[in-house]
């Protein structure tokens, strides 16, 4: 019988939540790496027992943990992310040049074809690759050395490369997103990169045709349609039908189009989920109600999903990597909140149940669908 494993990164450790295909009764394991920030954990689809975790703290910096047994045991691997060559400068918050400095790994993206290959999106923004399961890391320097690099500027959370999407139909194509530089695409396996931000509009950028500078919060893709991308920008929910060459807004009837997460149903490529957040000044859900919004039309028309979610006095946030979908027949949807709750829906969002209510603030949620 199928089962699921939900990997939860929090501000004070990691947790693994396991259930069978009914997704009703859950086993909670952890905390792993107690006391450390776990920005992200993700498993390989080639070998589901191979997991990577980004463990960090302001005191001791970055640690990379790897599990080869589905999260039961972990061992640290190499944590040396050295930028290639002389990294130069990007813009600081005040517009002055600031040297590139490694701070942490925001996102691991394991290869779709090789269990020992994994990509790491880091702050200050760069993309690294390991082909030996984390024993060594090499920067794909073509991204950082893109001519716009000196213009990149950090968002409020730092200048982080937080999204890495691999095209399952084209091993040479990858998408990444950086706050606040924007989205980029490679068509040659990471050697060269192209900004894909046409059509994005940001109040704080006077030039409507600016190639970079947009605060992209997250991007999602359905594997069966790798040319269709959905984006939650700082403000605005956007869609591209041409692999990011151009974008159009699909915020439609959302109560607010600020937010962080966005994800796509496992079996319905036009069904999209977001969690609107009140504003960039007030990072919590509007009206004290925690609601996931679902569009079955690829955007523009959104319905509020609130069954089982608190609809009164709720003021949590849901961060950019804190939503995931499983691949069971009735698609499961999961998300974690800044208040430490992890909610699950076994019916594609129609109803929700908390798996856990009192974890430390959730930074990331990923799910593995196991045979």
């Amino acid at each position, binding site marked *: 019988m199928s089962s699921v494993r939900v990997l939860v990164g929090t501000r004070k450790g990691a947790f693994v939540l396991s259930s069978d295909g009914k997704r009703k009764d859950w086993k909670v394991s952890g905390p792993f790496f107690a006391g*450390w920030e776990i920005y992200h954990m993700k498993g390989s689809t080639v070998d589901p027992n191979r997991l990577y975790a980004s463990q960090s703290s*302001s*005191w*001791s*910096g*970055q*640690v990379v943990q790897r599990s080869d047994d589905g999260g039961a045991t972990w061992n640290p691997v190499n*944590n*040396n992310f*050295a930028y290639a060559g002389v990294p130069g400068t990007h813009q600081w918050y005040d517009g002055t040049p600031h040297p590139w400095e490694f701070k942490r790994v925001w996102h691991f993206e394991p290869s779709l074809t090789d269990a020992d290959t994994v990509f790491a999106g880091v702050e200050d923004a760069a993309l690294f690759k390991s082909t030996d399961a984390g024993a060594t890391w090499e920067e794909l320097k073509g991204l950082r050395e893109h001519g716009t690099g000196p213009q990149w500027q950090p968002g409020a959370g730092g200048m982080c490369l937080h999204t890495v999407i691999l095209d399952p139909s084209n091993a040479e194509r990858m998408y990444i997103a950086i706050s606040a530089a924007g989205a980029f695409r490679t068509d040659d396996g990471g050697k060269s990169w192209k900004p894909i931000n046409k059509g994005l509009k940001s109040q704080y950028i006077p030039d409507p045709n600016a190639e970079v500078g947009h605060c992209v919060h997250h991007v999602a893709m359905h594997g069966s349609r790798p040319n269709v991308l959905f984006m939650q920008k700082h403000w605005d929910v956007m869609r591209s039908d041409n692999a990011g060459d151009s974008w159009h807004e699909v915020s439609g009837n959302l109560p607010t189009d600020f937010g962080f997460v966005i994800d796509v149903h496992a079996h319905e490529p036009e069904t999209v989920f977001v969690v609107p957040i009140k504003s960039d000044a007030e990072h919590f859900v509007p009206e004290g109600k925690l609601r996931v919004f679902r569009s079955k039309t690829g955007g523009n028309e959104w319905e509020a999903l609130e069954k089982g979610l608190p609809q009164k006095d709720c003021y949590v946030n849901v961060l950019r990597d804190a939503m995931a979908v499983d691949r069971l027949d009735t698609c499961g949807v999961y998300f974690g909140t800044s208040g430490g709750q992890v909610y699950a829906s076994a019916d594609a969002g129609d109803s929700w149940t908390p798996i856990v209510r009192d974890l430390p603030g959730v930074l990331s949620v990923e799910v593995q669908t196991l045979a």
Partner: protein
Amino acid sequence: MTEGGEGVAGIRVALPYHLRTLAKIESAEVRLEVAAPVTAKRVLDVLEARYPMLAGTIREHGTGQRRAYMRIFACEEDWSHESMDAELPEAVAAGREPLLILGAIAGG
């Protein structure tokens, strides 16, 4: 090299809780044999050779500089801002006093 063995000469190093956990060190201190002259750099070189997972957690990869929120104390004195190549007190070199590596009191 041995760890925590009674009567074994060597440098005593006390690590913060999170680094002991990371390196799976169960004793309060580790003992290291470090060739003279005993400096913070030499102690950390030996420490990281024995516990590779500690590389990058006390001092930066590449530059070798102390991480901003890590502190080094010896004989009740703050050595954090001394050169990593400065010779540590004789009491530390002789193993009578530990070299203390601490996380700064900052944040939550």
